[in-house]
């Protein structure tokens, strides 16, 4: 499900974090992404409702999230789109073939404001949605505050049905 890109509007980090909490997420696994570092990772770092686990590479986060899932804990994987691309084999195995509820929040670094990812001048951004589609991963485009309402239901659905979900952060959260 993709909302059209908006040239106007704003995306705040606080409601995103609130939605993640509403979905029962207790652990955030992340490699810092300059796109989401200020608006999401910095407040999460000091939020007592989350345990932040910093990993060295993004694919580690998928293994950790799977282990947490077996132990009945919910995790959010907060990474940049380049880290998503790096983690492709872990996502293929753990999220897609093993059908684990991997919940990804993926920063689309340097995406042009008002331009949909598939229309970006950046090759790396244009290929993200097609890759998710061919892998059968549910995806949501979060580009403004009005898009945030999909986050909590998407994460809860992922855990209830044991399937992966990707939330693409188009605009830099403030």
């Amino acid at each position: 499900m993709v909302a059209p890109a908006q040239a106007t509007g704003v995306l705040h980090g606080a409601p995103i974090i609130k939605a993640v909490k509403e979905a029962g997420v207790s652990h955030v696994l992340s490699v810092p992404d300059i796109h989401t570092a200020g608006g999401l990772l910095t407040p999460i770092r000091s939020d007592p409702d989350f345990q932040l686990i910093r990993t060295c590479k993004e694919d580690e986060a998928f293994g950790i999230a799977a282990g947490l899932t077996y132990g009945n804990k919910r995790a959010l994987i907060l990474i940049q789109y380049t880290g998503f691309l790096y983690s492709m084999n872990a996502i293929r195995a753990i999220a897609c073939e093993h059908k684990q509820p991997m919940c990804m929040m993926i920063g689309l670094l340097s995406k042009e404001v008002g331009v949909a990812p598939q229309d970006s001048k950046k090759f790396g951004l244009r290929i993200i949605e097609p890759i998710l589609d061919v892998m059968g991963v549910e995806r949501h485009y979060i580009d403004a505050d009005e898009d945030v309402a999909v986050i909590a239901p998407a994460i809860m659905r992922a855990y209830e049905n044991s399937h992966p979900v990707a939330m693409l952060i188009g605009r830099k959260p403030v």
Partner: protein
Amino acid sequence: MMNRTKCLQTLAPHLKDEIVVATYSTASEWVEMSDRALNYYSFGAMGLASSHGIGLALARPERRVIVLDGDGSLLMNLGTLVTIGAVAPKNLVHMVWCNGSYEANGGHPLPNREVDFCAMARAGGIANVRRIESHADFEAQLPAILTEEGPLFVQMMIEQGPLGPRKYDDMYKAERRQRLREALNA
């Protein structure tokens, strides 16, 4: 050099409610010898066994989590040693079975068979590090491995094992995963 089968046979009778995360060649032997409900098999994304172990250790701090990793696997995810050092789960034991080869991939040698994983683990922030080269030493250290506060890193020096086919699909079948979930949430 030790024999992996003999070491696993030594380990198995000592286990009670520990979660064992096994991967590739070691998993192939472990599932035949000790097919427990609390076994967790890590396949498909080579190198991530210890990452799965971190997640399990954090989610279930009341249980000891023993990861049976391989040296080829660990080389694909060396950052895990830094992550384990930082997260420092007290209930995590990371055992790395070192035969200097990608045994599950045809037995070809690692780029460097002399890698000092203990030094890497220490550098990553794991203080409790052991290197075991004989069965007698393994038997002597096993009680501590099963009780000391973690994270523990154990480098097991073994000879290469058989290169026969592995039943990965069987190990990761849905019934085993459901059995694990039920055992973890009993």
